């Protein structure tokens, strides 16, 4: 017999209503959310680095401004998500600590290096494109604070994919060296971006439960298919080749078939053995540790001022 609380929760989910922070919720639901939202937040924060890497070298002042605004947005998105996770009872400092300790996971895509300027284009077009496919359905996630954070993020992110596409388009309309740079970046980012949707449905044990709870709305493979279908015409418009010999339109399904992805690589990177895992964590840890004295100073100042005000009143 479900308890009254469980019944109420199940009714909310069945009615596709929103669960709010002070509602009763099953422990598994809370845990799943904390894990997913904090991982999402960590991904935004670590995800700043591959692009921040090119802020100082952006090849025009306009591109420099756009890139700065974009990386700055990512800090904001991390912040919105940490706030959402915090409503479930885990303080941000604790989540942050787990990240710098290396015990928290984040999207494996950010463990790949950004080797050329064209990577800024490929990340915007492919990585943000995949992220948007993932995120739009999350705006309707059953947990209210998560959905609201996603609404804000999706609104702000609408320019991220476009600016990436535009970078690649400029390159493809440019010199031979620029064209080669663009194709090389697409070659490197295409498969990892497809893997951003997570393992195939058969190997994704948590997906079913997440969908039953209305956290996740579509399966990994469904989202991946939607993304591939979207990419093909965009690649044609750009004039780049997607590096998949098996990619072709399937008349019967009305979708594009695509080749096998290297899931061994995916799991390797996820397990901490990607090209940049160590570097990304070290960067985050250094910023966190170098900033400690600043955060302490501000906290100490606030305490002193509060005391002075007390004495004065």
């Amino acid at each position, binding site marked *: 017999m479900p308890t009254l609380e469980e019944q109420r929760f199940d009714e909310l989910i069945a009615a596709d209503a929103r669960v*709010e*922070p*002070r*509602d*009763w919720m099953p422990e598994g639901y809370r845990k799943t959310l904390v894990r997913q939202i904090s991982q999402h937040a960590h991904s935004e924060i670590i995800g700043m680095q591959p692009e921040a890497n090119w802020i100082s070298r952006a090849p025009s002042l306009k591109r420099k401004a756009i890139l700065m605004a974009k990386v*700055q*947005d990512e800090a*904001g998105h991390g*912040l*919105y998500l940490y*706030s959402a996770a*915090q*409503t*479930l*009872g885990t*303080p*941000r*400092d*604790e989540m942050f600590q787990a990240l710098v300790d290396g015990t928290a996971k984040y999207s494996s895509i950010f463990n790949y290096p950004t080797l050329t300027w064209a990577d800024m284009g490929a990340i915007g077009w492919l990585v943000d494109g995949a992220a948007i496919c993932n995120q739009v359905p999350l705006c309707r996630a059953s947990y209210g604070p998560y959905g*609201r*954070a996603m609404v*804000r993020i999706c609104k*702000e992110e609408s320019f991220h994919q476009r600016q990436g596409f535009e970078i690649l388009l400029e390159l493809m309309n440019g010199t031979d060296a620029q064209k080669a740079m663009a194709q090389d970046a697409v070659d490197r980012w295409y498969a990892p971006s497809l893997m951003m949707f997570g393992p195939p449905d058969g190997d994704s044990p948590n997906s079913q439960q997440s969908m039953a709870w209305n956290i996740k709305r579509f399966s990994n493979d469904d989202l991946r298919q939607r993304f591939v279908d979207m990419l093909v015409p965009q690649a044609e418009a750009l004039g780049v080749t997607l590096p998949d010999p098996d990619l072709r339109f399937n008349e019967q399904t009305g979708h594009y078939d695509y080749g096998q992805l290297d899931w061994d690589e995916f799991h390797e990177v996820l397990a901490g053995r990607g090209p940049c895992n160590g570097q990304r964590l070290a960067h985050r840890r250094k910023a966190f540790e170098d900033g400690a004295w600043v*955060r*302490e100073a*501000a*906290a100490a*100042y*606030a305490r002193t*001022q*509060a005391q002075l005000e007390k004495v004065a009143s």
Partner: protein
Amino acid sequence: MTTPGAADDREEWPMWEVFVRANRGLSHVHAGSLHAPDATMAVKNARDLYTRRNEGVSIWVVPAEFITTSDPDAKGAYFESPAGKNYRHASYYTKSEGVKHL
């Protein structure tokens, strides 16, 4: 009763709730939260975080721990009463239909 997510001694900087007025004539609406060492910095951080795209003309910040919420378990007790009192709404009064300016 404090709100979930309020800062406690596990946090270096406390959490603040941010309310933004989108335009003159409108109320401040909850926009989200952030961390800041004190009120002055909280307003600045809110400006930088929640009004980068012209979303606001005015900001309130409140320490999250000072927000008191109604008890969701007492939902019935708190929010049942208005139901069945639809005489508080103009649409309850139908006899005057067709009469102008009412």
